[in-house]
């Protein structure tokens, strides 16, 4: 049983399927239906689906472009008949012609859309020339196994030349046999359904407990029970993984937003309220790089997220250095005043960007590596944009660690963080270190903006969302420790994700914040505090 089952559609489909074998395809009527009202379009879609399963090779070749054209609103209906607008061919005769003046491009209703998607995939599975296209078509069919017309998969398997794909088609055919009459086929179907555990599969399988065969046939009952147990286990694993993954992805965002802040805070005791705006500017620089590539090197457009890395880092680092030199340097030992000063900077930057770029969300290309996701197990889907952020966070963490641990600048930063006066005494140019470290922290914020642009909407306000969260990470982690920042981000991210499904997003946020406030009462210096004599 599936929630996609549309009983009326199915019965209609069966009727047509049995009738179609007798009569040859009435192409003119089909095109007329495609241009008709919602009901007629639905019939036409079902007819196309039937052609894919049972039609002759010529009919299939003729029908192949139609479903796709309807989906893309590329079918122009005029008085005569209809035109495939993209190719400039008559839909019926395939003679080249232009649509009439009053041509209308019908829009498939949501219900019909689903039928046409299926028909398009079915036709592609049987007649597309590229293996990749056939594989993609099979993926679409897999989403709605109950609606695949009888005979389609068998016919497709018979003519499939690619061995791997044929295996996949057979597997799908087995799954589709769940409601067949042969108990052995059903048991095989159960086993193959259990291969891919999901809630949907569970719903389908557990519905079988009310099947007559469940009571009468022991083998079948065992198979059903085994399948549900296996699916349940799969779902449990999937849920656990999903929680971990979601937590990790949220943590990576928190980490990216906070790491720059942590370095600056640790070093100078300055809470940089403009950090969120530097993130925003990083995202805007990324956008500018994208726009530049669009004109200068369109072939590299997909890689703008990678190519923008140096630009995002350098521009924000430069802004950070400018802030430090022009403002914060003069507020040495006045951390609360520098807090206000950076707030002014944040106000200024938001409004500057607003005036220059406007308030609308920026438009980003979505390259293949940050779009979509792969189902792993159960209901766990591995989404690429999150993965990008996670990977980016890990790379950033590694690089930051290397800079702080392995470079002279890092050594100086650590020295000044631990004891500013002593560092100054042994000849470390503390002002210069401040400047460079502020640049580094700001540059990291710019990178955060780059990494977050595939996840969040980019507009002048976007930085505001990160302020409180990233503060919390920094103070929870403890002043100026990278490890503290990582642990705090992971902790906050994971706890948030665990609470959210229980009490909702607002409560999760409130609870996490209250936990942090309480924790800081207990350990005011954060998780990784360095103890010392009275300052």
């Amino acid at each position, binding site marked *: 049983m599936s929630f996609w089952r549309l009983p009326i559609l199915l019965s209609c489909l069966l009727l047509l399927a049995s009738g179609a074998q007798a009569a040859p395809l009435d192409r003119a009527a089909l095109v007329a239906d495609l241009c008709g009202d919602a009901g007629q379009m639905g019939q036409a879609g079902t007819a196309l689906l039937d052609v894919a399963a049972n039609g002759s090779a010529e009919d299939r070749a003729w029908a192949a472009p139609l479903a796709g054209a309807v989906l893309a609103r590329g079918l122009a209906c005029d008085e005569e008949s209809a035109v495939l607008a993209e190719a400039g061919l008559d839909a019926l005769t395939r003679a080249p012609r232009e649509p009439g003046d009053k041509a209308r491009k019908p829009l498939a209703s949501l219900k019909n859309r689903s039928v046409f998607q299926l028909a398009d995939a079915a036709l592609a599975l049987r007649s597309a020339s590229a293996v990749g296209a056939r594989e993609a078509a099979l993926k679409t069919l897999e989403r709605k196994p109950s609606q695949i017309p009888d005979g389609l998969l068998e016919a497709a398997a018979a003519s499939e030349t690619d061995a791997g794909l044929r295996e996949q088609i057979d597997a799908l055919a087995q799954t589709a046999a769940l409601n067949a009459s042969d108990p052995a086929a059903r048991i095989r179907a159960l086993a193959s359904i259990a291969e891919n555990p999901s809630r949907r599969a569970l719903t389908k399988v557990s519905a079988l407990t009310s099947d007559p065969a469940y009571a009468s046939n022991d083998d079948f009952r065992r198979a059903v029970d085994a399948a549900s147990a296996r699916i349940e286990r799969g779902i449990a694993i999937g849920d656990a993984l999903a929680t971990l993954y979601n937590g990790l992805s949220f943590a990576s965002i928190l980490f990216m937003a906070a790491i720059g802040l942590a370095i600056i805070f640790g070093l100078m005791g300055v809470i940089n309220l403009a950090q969120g705006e530097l993130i925003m500017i990083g995202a805007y620089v990324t956008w500018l790089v994208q726009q530049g590539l669009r004109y200068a090197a369109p072939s590299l457009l997909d890689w703008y997220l990678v190519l923008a890395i140096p630009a995002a880092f350098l521009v924000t680092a430069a802004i950070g250095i400018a802030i430090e030199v022009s403002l914060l340097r003069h507020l040495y030992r006045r951390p609360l005043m520098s807090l206000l000063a950076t707030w002014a900077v944040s106000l200024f930057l938001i409004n500057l960007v607003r005036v220059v770029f406007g308030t609308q969300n920026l438009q980003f290309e979505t390259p293949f590596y940050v779009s979509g996701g792969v189902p792993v197990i159960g209901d766990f889907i591995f989404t690429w944009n999150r993965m990008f952020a996670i990977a980016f966070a890990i790379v950033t963490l590694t690089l930051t660690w290397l800079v702080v641990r392995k470079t002279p600048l890092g050594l100086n930063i650590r020295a000044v963080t631990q004891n500013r006066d002593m560092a100054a005494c042994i000849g470390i140019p503390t002002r210069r270190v401040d400047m460079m470290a502020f640049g580094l922290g700001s540059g990291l914020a710019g990178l955060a903006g780059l990494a977050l642009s595939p996840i969040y909407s980019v507009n002048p306000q976007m930085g505001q969302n990160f302020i409180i969260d990233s503060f919390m990470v920094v103070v929870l982690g403890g002043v100026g420790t990278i490890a503290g920042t990582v642990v705090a981000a992971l902790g906050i991210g994971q706890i948030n994700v665990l609470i959210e499904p229980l009490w909702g997003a607002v409560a999760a946020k409130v609870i996490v914040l209250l936990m942090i406030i309480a924790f800081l009462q207990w350990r005011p210096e954060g998780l990784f505090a*360095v*103890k*010392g*004599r*009275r300052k």
Partner: protein
Amino acid sequence: MAMTALLVDGLSVRFGSFQAIDDLSLAIDYGEVRAVIGPNGAGKTTLLDVISGITRPKQGRVLFDGAHEIVGRSEAAIARAGIRRKFQKPSVFEGLSVRQHIAIGADVGFRSRLDTPALEDRVGEVLETVRLADKADALAGALSHGQKQWLEIGMVLASEPKVLMLDEPVAGLTDEETERTASLVRALKRPDRAIVVVEHDMDFVERIADRVTVLHEGRTLFEGSMDRVRADPAVVEVYLGR
């Protein structure tokens, strides 16, 4: 034998992996001026921090007046019991006048008035002692370094403490100022008062101290009079060997 003002027993303090004080025991009697000396990082200031309640030790105890455990009590409670301390870095309140400092030091209370005759007398007395009477209405922020040192001494002195701890009272002072400070400290010596001085200036220590404790790496290296300190090979090794 004079009564023990402070008894430090088996004291240990750690900062992370650094052992600031390591199983230190020490007794300071009423009526004596005790100097605590030692190289940087020997644990001198940390010792004062523990006694004044700022730092909590990992283990060990500190008995005041021979009976009262003061480890674990608040700084304020310890101070009210009669243990007062001048900090290494002159710690004065920049926004207050000299007179206000002494008055705050003399009388512990939130509500009491500043201008009662008894308090005014005491303030005047202390101001004379630390020779700041002519600066009584100046803001502390405007004083010279030496005057700040004296002001702080005056502030801790004002309450007639039983234990007076001075952390580097002559650091950064001119010779003449050091001289004056030395005579001030000697003048403060009383049978019912113990004075602990942490100092690097050996001449100053020699002038004021009855006994000297040398700390090294958180332990007592030597205890005795200044002459014997100078003669002790271990002390010489610690001071000159590195």
